[in-house]
């Protein structure tokens, strides 16, 4: 069964407010060497095994249409057969 692993991240130019809070928390725990934290999303999609279509093209479309917002996010994915 093909599995797709999708990682979505905020564009580097955008301030990651959540990431900054986590970075501050790590600093307060003593990890002074943490220079930046960026929080993203990770998704696993299970596709039906008899899918003979072009998985790469289809997943890219899913990312562009719904899974990511291209205005604020980047995405990457890998297909594990």
């Amino acid at each position, binding site marked *: 069964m093909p599995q797709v692993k999708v990682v979505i991240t905020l564009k580097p130019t955008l301030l990651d*407010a959540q990431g900054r809070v986590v970075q501050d928390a790590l600093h307060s725990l003593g990890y002074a060497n943490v220079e930046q934290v960026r929080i993203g999303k990770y998704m696993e999609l299970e596709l039906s095994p008899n899918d003979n279509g072009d998985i790469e093209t289809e997943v890219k479309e899913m990312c562009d249409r719904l899974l990511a917002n291209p205005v604020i996010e980047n995405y990457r994915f890998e297909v594990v057969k």
Partner: protein
Amino acid sequence: MSATIANANQTPARTGGRKPKFAVVRFPGSNCDQDAYFVVKDVLGCPVEYIWHQDTSLKGIDIVILPGGFSYGDYLRTGAVARFSPIMEAVRAHAERGGFVLGICNGFQVLCEAHLLPGALVRNTSCQFRCKMTHLRVENNETPFTRAYAPGQVLRIPIAHGEGRYVCDDETLRALEEGRRILFRYVDAKGTPTPESNPNGSVANIAGIANAHFNVLGMMPHPERASETILDSADGRGVFESLVQAAQMAMK
């Protein structure tokens, strides 16, 4: 019944003619729908009906309101799933025909996800949910949403959101500025945009923007929560009154 009495029974309409008909779209998780409905029906005296997100027709209404709330639990991103509700195709067609669309708070987020407005709304810089009164300055009062206001008028309208930081690329910001499509900015009580008066970190203190044709408005503050003096401020009523005037002009 004499003509005088008949007239007395009518709520005076500003520009005469038929009153525009409003729709308030309800998504699962909408929670400001009743407030918007109340303002239209009881404060403005205009016809209004709820439209369920699974419906596919706006049934000939003039003005669509996408209300605040947490449509689909804000899963994935705010507005990301609501954008694909069946009713949104009708909303898009309505907007493309020049029909008026007002998105408030979550409604603004839905309009951005649907690409009916540019940019996006992300988590407040403070990471806090901000629920408070804000001051807004009317940046352009020559629009269907702001014609009832004076140029530069400072309004008191509350916000209630965790993800209201408006972001867009430089090119979009320039287009918004040059096209006078920023209708409201967060300001201090004196009417000056300052970092302190920006409750969410929005670029250029943006609180509300219109599309290029000025028939779609998205705003994070809640005018429906500030439409009667008993609720501390009636400054938000102007948005709805402007729309009624504009819709009546469009009918002529």
